[in-house]
């Protein structure tokens, strides 16, 4: 039971926030339509947070996520413009994510400069690459089924509840959470984030596994880029500026720790949903952007303070 306390807490927090907006905006908020819209819009941060949860559990961080998302949208647009099938575009997106994750992982484990600084550098580099490939312009692309991944459902499709992109997110999260919990690899990821020295003494190949974690992170952030392209339908090298901070915030709201060892994939998804709910609720209440920003900031602070309090209480017993 204790094991699930965290995820239950985050879901309860979301229910409270959702409930508040249902009272404040009774006309549009408590509808299926609205829930579907929330799920459509959460997929980008959601996919990113799956990857970021892996990275943060292993004690790392990835600031290059937003730049990577922009790079992926440009890559897909360029591939589609060359007349390739959408499947090639999807493959290119995943490959871009994997390669950038690999670069991050190799630099972090070899330079030993710390994930924050290395990904701060690649944040600039990947953004620059996106601008170079797109010649500093948005890249138009033909419409394909990729755009349908995050489209609103037509009335005849309501039995699906959510668009395919959202279902894909839930499916991927389930696999990712299972791997983390029930495979040797997953436990070693937690071990490294929990106490890297102990992990090394126990014979875990810390460098190899850390690199693999960044590759997995890049893969999911690449999928987030695919979802962003689906929403934008163009390649945009200036897209997703600061997205990495939203993703990190989602993981932190879900109980992830910047010092590693802790985090839960589903809780991170709910964390992303909480932020999206505030954004949607704020918009529907005609709240100014700055009010939404402050509220989101407060939610992050409350989540972190709650987490600290929980740890302090556990330590005192």
């Amino acid at each position: 039971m204790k094991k699930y306390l965290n995820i239950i807490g985050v879901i309860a927090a979301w229910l409270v926030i959702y409930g508040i907006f249902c009272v404040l905006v009774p006309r549009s908020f408590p509808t299926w339509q609205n829930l579907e819209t929330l799920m459509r819009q959460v997929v980008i941060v959601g996919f990113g947070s799956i990857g970021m949860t892996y990275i943060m559990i292993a004690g790392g961080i990835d600031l290059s996520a937003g730049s990577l998302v922009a790079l992926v949208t440009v890559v897909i647009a360029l591939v589609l413009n060359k007349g390739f099938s959408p499947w090639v575009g999807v493959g290119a997106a995943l490959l871009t994510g994997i390669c950038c994750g690999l670069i991050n992982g190799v630099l972090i484990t070899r330079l030993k400069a710390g994930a924050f600084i290395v990904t701060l550098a690649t944040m600039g580099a990947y953004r620059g690459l996106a601008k170079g490939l797109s010649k500093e312009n948005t890249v138009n692309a033909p419409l394909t089924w990729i755009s349908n991944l995050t489209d609103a459902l037509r009335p005849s499709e309501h039995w699906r509840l959510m668009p395919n992109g959202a279902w894909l997110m839930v499916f991927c999260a389930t696999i990712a959470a299972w791997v983390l919990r029930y495979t040797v690899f997953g436990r070693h990821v937690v071990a490294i984030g929990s106490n890297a020295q102990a992990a090394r003494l126990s014979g875990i190949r810390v460098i190899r596994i850390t690199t693999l974690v960044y590759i997995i992170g890049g893969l999911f952030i690449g999928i987030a880029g695919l979802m962003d392209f689906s929403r934008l339908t163009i390649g945009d090298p200036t897209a997703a500026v600061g997205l990495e901070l939203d993703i990190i915030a989602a993981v932190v709201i879900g109980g992830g720790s910047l010092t590693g060892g802790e985090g839960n994939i589903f809780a991170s998804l709910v964390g992303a949903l909480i932020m999206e709910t505030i954004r949607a609720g704020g918009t529907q209440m005609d709240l100014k952007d700055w009010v939404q920003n402050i509220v989101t900031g407060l939610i992050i602070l409350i989540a972190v303070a709650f987490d600290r309090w929980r740890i302090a209480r556990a330590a005192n017993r």
Partner: protein
Amino acid sequence: MWFLRAEEISKSFGATQALLGVSFEAKKGEVLAVVGENGSGKSTLMRILAGEERPDSGRLLLDDAPYSPRDPLKARNHGVALIHQELALCPHLTVAENVELGGESHRGPVLSVAQMRSKAKSLLAEMGHPDLSPDIEVRRLPPAVQQVVEIAKALTRNASVIIFDEPTSSLGKDDVANLFRQIRNLRERGAAVIYISHFLDEVMEIADRATVLRDGSLVGTVDIAKTDIQELIRLMVGREVSELYPRSGHQPGEVLLDVEHLAGRKLPRDAVLQLRRGEVLGVAGLNGSGRTEFLRAICGLDRIVSGEITFAKWAGRAEVHDRWRQGMGFLSEDRKQEGLALKLSLAENLMMPRPGRKGLVRPSFQNARTKTWIERLGIKCKGPDQTVGHLSGGNQQKVALGRLLEQDVDLLLLDEPTRGIDLGSKSEIYKVIDELAVRGKSMLLVSSYLPELLGVCDRIAVMSRGVLGPPVDASLTNAELLMEACVK
């Protein structure tokens, strides 16, 4: 018949000779204690056995085969496990996951959770802990139980040599008894156990033989059955007080510091003390006995749970910045982490509490003040602008001490002021301490090096397991008596 042999092991760190030609052997089905004062080289020796350090010369034999572990993993694969004082567990993983970490039961990439749990469970039951759940996260366990997990971890790898480094320093009495049961159990299973401890009564209880180290050299190995605590103490401290210590007649004045039954969160547990002006009071004790915490509590760095402190005209508790203003300064034992900002210059370090006046830094003022201290303390450096990290340990310590002198504090709390510095600097620091006392300054001096306390202090009190004993006149005691009180 020997299972593990060390032959003529030497190791030095920079100018410090940590080990010099140390040989010893351990056999299966035996507990070998390794004893010695702080800094005698015990820990270095054990780190070499466990592959965490490599010796400069000498060789190791394991089961008559050459054994030279390049890293801790290689040592573990050879069956040598070191159980650290600070445990090496992953706090977020469960008991079972920690026990099997790095060697998990699995089918393909998937964990065999049930098998892991039952393996851990039966191992823990075998060790006398059938009630310890394999599913609980390690961070939710008290230190004594975490230690059990660490031992279980060594056992799953079939360790044949198990080294305990000061295992009881954070344990209560019941936990110690339980640990000894585990160790006897290991001995019966045919493991070679190496047990490092300061607590000689524990050594007498659990060990079969004891190897004594002093200043990095082997003093001898004795049969526990044929010796007693007095003999061990004599072997550990047997050296002469050299002529290092100047001593002018100190004239203690009125009481400056009055400490009444002071207790911190964990340490100290109970400390009573009166310190007079112009007096040097020594605090002896083992690492972890609460000496440092005692000083930290006095100067407001650690929280005080109960007890009273009266300093000069100020009664009650105070924050550390108030203590500075009241005339109390603290010299940390950890020069590199707490004592100095190694990347800053001499002047910036020395003048850190008060770099200028009216909120502005005045480099000329800083440099002039720093130059006078460079001269008076004999700090060997290029000048006030030199980076402190580039100085030798002894000169760094003089800079840290100079900071207290610049503030002209009345009470200096000195925590291991001569740790890891050369003999010349040591004697210069002793001279400064003596001069300060003559000028009516008071000092609380914490040190692990008993001859130093005996040479410098007017009175000496012993801290043991968090309780400060009554101070006795330095001329009425000796190293053996102090050591006896330390290891009680």
